C-alpha cells in the first residue's frame, strides 16, 4: 500500500509539473531581461460628435489621433453605428461622450466603461429637460417616462469650456508629462470660445428680450445662456412645413411676435418666402455643428453663426 501510494504520488507530482507553466519568478526574470523599450504612441480618441473632436484636437495636438466616424451630412445625435464601427470604438484609448442623452446608441452597445468619458457629467444639474416627453405605461412596472434632455450643450460656450476641461483632465490622466502642452491647448481654445461668447452676449443684450423663434428644439442651452426669449416649432430645413405646422406657428405667434427664426441649416426658398410674406419672420442660420462643417472647422462655423446674428437688422 505504501509503495502504491508513493508511485501514485510520484505520478501526481509529474502530472502537476507537466501541467504547470513557467513559475511567476521565472516570468519576472524573463521580463527583467527584456530590453525596456518605450514607444511614444499617439493616443487614439473616438468621439460621438464634432465639437468634442474639435476640442480634443485643439487640446491634445500631435499627441492624439481623433476619430469621428459619423458620415458627413448625418446628425450624430440620431446616428447608429454598425457592429464594426462599435468594434472600432472599443479599440480606442478613450471614448469622448457628449452625455445629456446625446448618443442614445451607447446604451445599446458594449463599450469599455473604463474608456468612457462623459464630458458633461460635471454639470448634470444644468441639463435642460424638454417639456414634451412622451410617457407610456404597460406591464407590471407601470408608468415610465422617456425623459428628453436637451443635448446641444456646447451651444452654451461656458458649458463647452466645461466639456473641454473634462477632455483635458482625461488626457492629463493618461498622458503623464503632457500637462503643460494640454494646458496651453485648452487656454487657446477657451480664449476662442470666450470671444464667441462675448460677441453673442453683446448681440443678445442689444436684442433685449425681443421674441425669437427656433425652427427646431436644439437651441435650449443657447437660449438659457443669453436669456433669449425663444420659442420653438418643429420645422425641418429640407422640408416644407405641413399645414398643421403652419397652424402651430400661427398659434405660437399670437403671444410671441418674433421677427426672426433660427435655423440649423438654410431652409427651402418656399419656406423662407412664406415665413417672410405671411408671418413677417426672417430666417437666419445658426448651425449647431454637431457634425463636421462642409468647410472650415468648428470655430469658423461658430464665427459664421455669430456674424449672421450680428448682421440682423435691429427690430
Amino acid at each position: 500500500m505504501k509503495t502504491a501510494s508513493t508511485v501514485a504520488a510520484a505520478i501526481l507530482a509529474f502530472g502537476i509539473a507537466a501541467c504547470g507553466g513557467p513559475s511567476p519568478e521565472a516570468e519576472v526574470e524573463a521580463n527583467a531581461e527584456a530590453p525596456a523599450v518605450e514607444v511614444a504612441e499617439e493616443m487614439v480618441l473616438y468621439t460621438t460628435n464634432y465639437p468634442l473632436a474639435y476640442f480634443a484636437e485643439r487640446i491634445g495636438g500631435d499627441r492624439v489621433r481623433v476619430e469621428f466616424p459619423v458620415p458627413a451630412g448625418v446628425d450624430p445625435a440620431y446616428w447608429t453605428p454598425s457592429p464594426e464601427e462599435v468594434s472600432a470604438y472599443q479599440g480606442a484609448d478613450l471614448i469622448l461622450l457628449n452625455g445629456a442623452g446625446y448618443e442614445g446608441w451607447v446604451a445599446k452597445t458594449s463599450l469599455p466603461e473604463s474608456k468612457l468619458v462623459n464630458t458633461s457629467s460635471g454639470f448634470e444639474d444644468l441639463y435642460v429637460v424638454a417639456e414634451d416627453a412622451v410617457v407610456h405605461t404597460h406591464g407590471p412596472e407601470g408608468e415610465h417616462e422617456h425623459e428628453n434632455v436637451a443635448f446641444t450643450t456646447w451651444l452654451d460656450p461656458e458649458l463647452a469650456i466645461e466639456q473641454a476641461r473634462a477632455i483635458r483632465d482625461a488626457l492629463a490622466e493618461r498622458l503623464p508629462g503632457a500637462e503643460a502642452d494640454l494646458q496651453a491647448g485648452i487656454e487657446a481654445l477657451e480664449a476662442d470660445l470666450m470671444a464667441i461668447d462675448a460677441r453673442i452676449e453683446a448681440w443678445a443684450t442689444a436684442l433685449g428680450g425681443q421674441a425669437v423663434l427656433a425652427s427646431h428644439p436644439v437651441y435650449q442651452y443657447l437660449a438659457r445662456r443669453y436669456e433669449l426669449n425663444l420659442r420653438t416649432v418643429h420645422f425641418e430645413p429640407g422640408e416644407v412645413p405641413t399645414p398643421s405646422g403652419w397652424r402651430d406657428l400661427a398659434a405660437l405667434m399670437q403671444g410671441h411676435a418674433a421677427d426672426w427664426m433660427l435655423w440649423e441649416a438654410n431652409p427651402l426658398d418656399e419656406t423662407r418666402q412664406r415665413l417672410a410674406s405671411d408671418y413677417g419672420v426672417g430666417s437666419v442660420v445658426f448651425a449647431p455643428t454637431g457634425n463636421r462643417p462642409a468647410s472650415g472647422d468648428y470655430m469658423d462655423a461658430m464665427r459664421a453663426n455669430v456674424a449672421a446674428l450680428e448682421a440682423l437688422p435691429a427690430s
Partner: protein
Amino acid sequence: MTDTLYLAWRYLAFHRVKTAILVAAITLIVFLPVGLRVIVNQSSRQLTARAEATPLVIGAKGSPTELTLNTLYFSSDVPARTTYAVASEVTATDLARAIPMYVRFRVQGQPIVGTTLEYFEFRGLELAAGRQIAVLGEAVLGSRAAEMLGVGPGDYVVSSPESVFDIAGVYPLRMPVVGVLDFSDSADDDAVFVDVKTAWVIEGLGHGHQDLSRPEAAAGVLRREGNVVVGNAAVMQFNEITPDNIDSFHFHGDLSGFPLTAVVVVPPDQRSSALLQGRYQTSETNQVVSPSEVMDKLLGTILTVEKFVIAGAVTVGMATLATAFLVFALSLRLRRRERETLFKIGGSRTAVATVMASEIVAVLAVGVLSALVLTFLTQRYGDVIIRALIR
C-alpha cells in the same frame, strides 16, 4: 517459469469472480486515499488560483461563500442582489476598477454571465473566432459552452426560463453568437457572456415593443391621457434584438438601481484595497469579500473533511486488506489437496509455492495498476469534475 505462471493465470481465470472481487478490493484500498488526495490538491489549486486572481468582490449582505462561488464559478446558487450603483460608486472613488457581474440566467444549463468588456481584459480571455460583443443582445461563448451547445459565430442561443411555471417572469431572449473564446481552462469556458444590459433585458427590466404613439400600434393602446399612452396586454414585445427593432429597446427606471449579483473590484495597490474594504465593512446593505480568504476557509473545511475521509478509507482499507489476507489464507488451506496432487505428479515444492505466490502477486499487481490508472484519470479530468460539482 512460464508453466508456473500459466498455471497461476489459469487458476485466476477459472475463479474470475473471486479474482475480480479481490482486484477491486485492492484497487479501492489504494485508490481511495490517493485519489482523494489528488482531487483535494486539484480543487485547492484551482480554487486558490482563481480566487487569488480576483482581488475583491462586493455583493449584497449574505453568504460570502455563495457570493464568491457565483462570481468566480458562476454557480447556480444566486446570491442576494446588489445594484449597479455600487459599481458606479467604486469607479467614482478612483480607487479601483469595478466590473459588474450579473450571473443569474442560463442557456440549457450553461451560465449566462452579464458583465462588461473589462471582464475579458481582466481574465485575459482572447477570442478564438468571431468578434467581441458590440450590440445589445449579442453573446460571446466560452469554448466548452460553444461545444456543449453546438453553436458558433452566426448561430443563436436562447435564454432558458427560470421555471416552467414562470409564465409572467423571464421570457426567453434569442441571442446571436458573435464570438467564441479561446480555451482558458477555467469556469469562463462554460459561460455564455453577454453585456450586463442584455442580462437586464432577459430579466425584463429593458425591453423593446411597438411605438405606442404610432397608428399601427393602435391595437396595443388601452387609452391616451395627454402625453401618457397606456398600453394593454396586446403590446407586441420583441424576443430578439435586431437592427430593425433595437431602437425600440429601452430600460425602465434608473440604471443605477438595476440588479447585479456582484461587483468584481480590482484595486491597483494594497492601500486602495484597504481603503475600499474599510468603506464597505460598515455598509448595512453590502459586503466586501476577499475571495482568497473565503476560499481558504472553504479549503480548511474541505481539508478537515478530507482527513476524516482518509482516516475512514485507511480503516476500511486495513479491514479489506485483512479480509483479502483471510481469503488468500483460506484459499490456500482449501487448496491443500490441489498442492498435494501437484507435488505427486512431479511438481517441486518450490514450483508449487511459486504458483500460489504468483496468483497473489498477480492480484495485487493488477489491483495496484488499476488504482494508478484511476489516479491518472482523476488527475487528468479532476478539474472538469470539480467545476461540474461547483456548478
